[in-house]
Each structure stands twice: as structure tokens, then as C-alpha cells.
């Protein structure tokens, strides 16, 4: 039996996996690394960039607050006045817990994985609201290029710190690039503004020992797959059914793998049942096949919003392994 790591590599390299990869099983997350602050349920916090996030009690996540009082970047042409990147911790103490955790991982079995979020695109709209950020791409392109360069340099500095302290094998990088039906911006605009940033960031990780880049965008982004390949993404996690995943596997499978095709919104809700989960998992596995595909909830992490859904999905994947391998 292959290790989790071997089985993942066989799957994404078009080899001979001996089973379906069960969602995030190959990633061993080191969540102790210093990084962005996220709110807990019911909390409102201000993060190190000054962005206020609110997580309403009983709901599924935290959201940036963008009324006039809380918006960090009030005028893109004056971004240097408003946007101040936080200092990246360097003390041994700050990194000790993450290093200790990483040292416990058998790297032959799993990938030591660091979670990086939010990405460059999300940062632009967290700072100033989606509307302002998207219109600025048209109205103030020079300032947006400058801001994106600044955010990219900060990401690269953070990447260096992660590499120096943890030597990760895998980066799980969040940046949502679309709604469930469409990318937020056109491919041409993405190519101009965000592709160069991501080529730098992912090339830096790859040049410094990171074997696997997993990019999370639980959205439609089929029109951006050629750019994902160009920037060095190994696995697109979060691929929703609206992308026609089986077709993507056929078209691009030898260059990038797809992780998802089980839409969280369809299976992970208050009235979920194991039967609904099993039906979706079977559809995904049969349609997408055994290579270049990892059946997974589209949610960006190894959990589910409602207790039991994540484990039930794993059980359904095991069942499909028995039937298809």
C-alpha cells in the first residue's frame, strides 16, 4: 500500500495510485505558524493590516467590514498613506511551536503544509471593498499595479520566513478568484494584474524546496486554468461542479490536478445526510476518474461546517475506492 504522499503523487503525475486520495489526507497542516489573525465565531477583530473582520454567531465565516468607518484604503491613489504591511515576526519564540509541530511529521508519509491566506487578490478587496478594488483596476491601473507589487513583496517576505523556519513541503494558498458561475475579472485582466504576482510567489516557493503548490478558490475559474498552470499551481482545490471538472481533467490533467467537485453547499448544510454525501461523492469519482483528480469538499480546509460531513465524505470516498480500484 502506498503512503498518503506516494498515493497523492501517483494520482497527480498520472501514475498508478492504489486508491482515491481522501480529501486533505496528504497535507499535515502546521497552523501554529505566525500569520494573519482570523476571527472566531461571534468575534469582531481588527487584523495586523487594520482590516476589521466580523464573524456573526452561528454563521459560516468571517467577513471584512467595509463601511466608511472601517474601510482601510479610502483612496487608491493614496494607497501608500493608508496601507502599511505588518512586521513579520522573526523571534525564535514566535516560530517555536510551529517548528516543534513540523518536526513531529513523517515527511515520507505526509506533506508538511502551511496555510497561507488571504492571497493578493483578496487582499486588494479586503483593504478597500470589492467594488472599489474592481473599479480601481479600470480607473487607477497604475496605482493598482503598485499596490499589488507591494502586497506581493510582503507575501514573498512572509514566504521566506516560512521557508527559513519550517521548510514546508506544500503550500495551501487561499485566494478566491470567482463566484460559483464566473471569475470575478476577465482572463485578460487577471493576466495583466495578478498572473505576474503569482508567478513570482509560487516560483519562489518552488525554488526553495516546496514540492507542491495547492491553490484554493472555491469558485468557477475554469477560464483561469491556463494561468494556474503558468504560475506553477500543482493542484487547484475548490473546483466546483460549475467548472465541468471531468472536462478540465481531460483537457489539462497532465499539467494540473483538480481537487473538489463535491460542492460544499450541496452536501454541507444543516439537514445533510450521509446518503446525499454518498451520492455526490459517487458522481464526482465516476465522472472525474482516478487520475489528476482528488475527490474533496470544495471548502478550503480539512473540516466541514456541520459536524460529520467531512468524515462522511471520507467514508464515501473509501467506498468508491473499493468499487473503482
Amino acid at each position, binding site marked *: 500500500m502506498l503512503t498518503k504522499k506516494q498515493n497523492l503523487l501517483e494520482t497527480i503525475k498520472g501514475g498508478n495510485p492504489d486508491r482515491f486520495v481522501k480529501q486533505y489526507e496528504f497535507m499535515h497542516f502546521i497552523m501554529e505558524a505566525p500569520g494573519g489573525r482570523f476571527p472566531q465565531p461571534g468575534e469582531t477583530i481588527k487584523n495586523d493590516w487594520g482590516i476589521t473582520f466580523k464573524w*456573526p454567531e*452561528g454563521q459560516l465565516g468571517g*467577513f471584512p467590514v467595509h463601511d466608511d468607518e472601517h474601510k482601510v484604503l479610502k483612496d487608491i491613489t493614496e494607497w501608500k498613506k493608508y496601507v502599511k504591511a505588518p512586521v513579520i515576526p522573526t523571534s525564535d519564540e514566535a516560530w517555536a511551536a510551529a517548528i516543534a509541530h513540523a518536526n513531529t511529521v513523517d515527511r515520507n508519509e505526509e506533506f508538511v503544509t502551511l496555510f497561507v491566506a488571504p492571497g493578493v487578490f483578496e487582499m486588494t478587496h479586503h483593504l478597500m471593498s*470589492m467594488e472599489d478594488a474592481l473599479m480601481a483596476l*479600470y480607473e487607477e491601473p497604475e496605482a493598482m499595479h503598485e499596490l499589488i507589487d507591494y502586497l506581493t513583496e510582503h507575501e514573498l517576505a512572509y514566504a521566506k520566513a516560512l521557508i527559513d523556519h519550517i521548510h514546508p513541503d506544500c503550500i495551501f494558498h487561499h485566494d478566491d478568484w470567482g463566484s460559483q458561475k464566473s471569475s*470575478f475579472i476577465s482572463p485578460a485582466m487577471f493576466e495583466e494584474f495578478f498572473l505576474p504576482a503569482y508567478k513570482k510567489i509560487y516560483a519562489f516557493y518552488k525554488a526553495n524546496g516546496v514540492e507542491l503548490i495547492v491553490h484554493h478558490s472555491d469558485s468557477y475559474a475554469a477560464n483561469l486554468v491556463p494561468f494556474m498552470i503558468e504560475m506553477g499551481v500543482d493542484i487547484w482545490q475548490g473546483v466546483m461542479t460549475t467548472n465541468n471538472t471531468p472536462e478540465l481533467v481531460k483537457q489539462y490533467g497532465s499539467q494540473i490536478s483538480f481537487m473538489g467537485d463535491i460542492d460544499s453547499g450541496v452536501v*454541507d448544510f444543516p439537514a445533510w445526510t450521509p446518503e446525499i454525501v454518498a451520492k455526490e461523492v459517487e458522481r464526482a469519482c465516476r465522472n472525474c476518474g482516478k487520475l489528476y483528480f482528488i475527490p474533496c469538499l470544495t471548502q478550503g480546509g480539512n473540516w466541514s461546517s456541520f459536524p460529520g460531513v467531512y468524515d462522511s465524505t471520507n467514508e464515501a470516498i473509501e467506498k468508491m475506492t473499493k468499487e473503482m480500484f
Partner: protein
Amino acid sequence: MSKINEVKAMVEAGKARLVPGLVQEALAEGNAAKDILQGMVDSMRVVGDLFSAGELFVPEMLMAAKAMSKGVEVLKPLFEDQSTSSLGTCIIGTVEGDLHDIGKNLVSMMIGSAGFDMVDLGVDVTPAKFVEAVKDNENVKIVACSGLLTTTMTKMQETVQALKASGLTGFEVIVGGAPVSAEYAASIGADGFAPDAGSAAVKAVELAKN
């Protein structure tokens, strides 16, 4: 090309800086303000259709809406003291517990562009606030409820039920958002559903004219 057609083309292209001047020129050419406004409404319909078809993206839609609003600013003084072609008032908001505003804002822009007076209640709006807004505003024809989270779908249902049980009449309720389907909309008693911002405007006009 007539000036109205130039206005339309520039709204579709999202040229917010050019539209006000062109609207002035269209007026100087002798066009009626209401015809220029109708031209811009038609342009936004084209933009909405292209968005629905996946040929335009959010920034283009935002820029077109901004261009139109700049044009409307020029026309506004001409409509004072006379009844405009308003289709009525539309109350819009994201339901309680949900802070997503991008989809709601796009829908608001598109419905506003179609000729409604918009009252945007923002995000995390309780059922009671929706009902209150219908009471507090005149000529409410549409109430639009948005939600992106599966957990807030129950709040959407509560909102629709509160509006229907309020005893207030003369308006239709439309719902939308990622987890919402036409079947779900019907099951909770909504009058309409739209899968995206462009279609929401079409649906709002259709319901208001019934």
C-alpha cells in the same frame, strides 16, 4: 451616430468620464431627457445580458453602472417636479446573519438601472427591518432578499414569511444568492428568483409591471 447612441455606447463601455458630456450634447441636440434615460436603461440591459452570458465580468458591470449614474446626475434636475419613468421602489438587503454584499450590490445597481428607486438596507438585515422598510417607503413594488450562506437560507424563509404575513400589499418578493434555486424560492413562498444580477433586473421589471 446620434448622440443618444453615443451615450448608450459609452455607458456599455463604462466610460464614466465621457457620459456626462455626451448627455449634455444629446440634450443640446434636442433629445428629450426621458429618451436619453431610456437609452441608458437599455444599455444596462445589454450589459446585464452580457454578464449573464459570461461575456462581461464584475468590473465591467460596475463601470457601466457608474457611467450611467453620472449620466443620470445630469438629467436629474430636468426630472424635478415631474413624474419620471420610475417603476417604483425596490427594497433590497442581505438577510440576517449574512454579511455578503457583493452580489446584493450588483443586483441593486442593475435593478436601479432598470428604473427603480432603490432603498438598500445593507447586510445582516432582520425580517422586521425588511417589513419596516416596506412600511416606511412609498410605492414599494419589489423587495429583494439576498443570501450566500446555506445557514442563512432559513432566515430568507423567515423574511419572506414575515413580509407575506405583514398584511402589507402591492409588492412582490424576489430572492437570490449562491445556494438559492428557483425550486427553493418557490418553496418558501417568494414571488420570483433570479440566478444573477442581470436576470434579477429583468425579473423585477416583469413582476412590477404585472
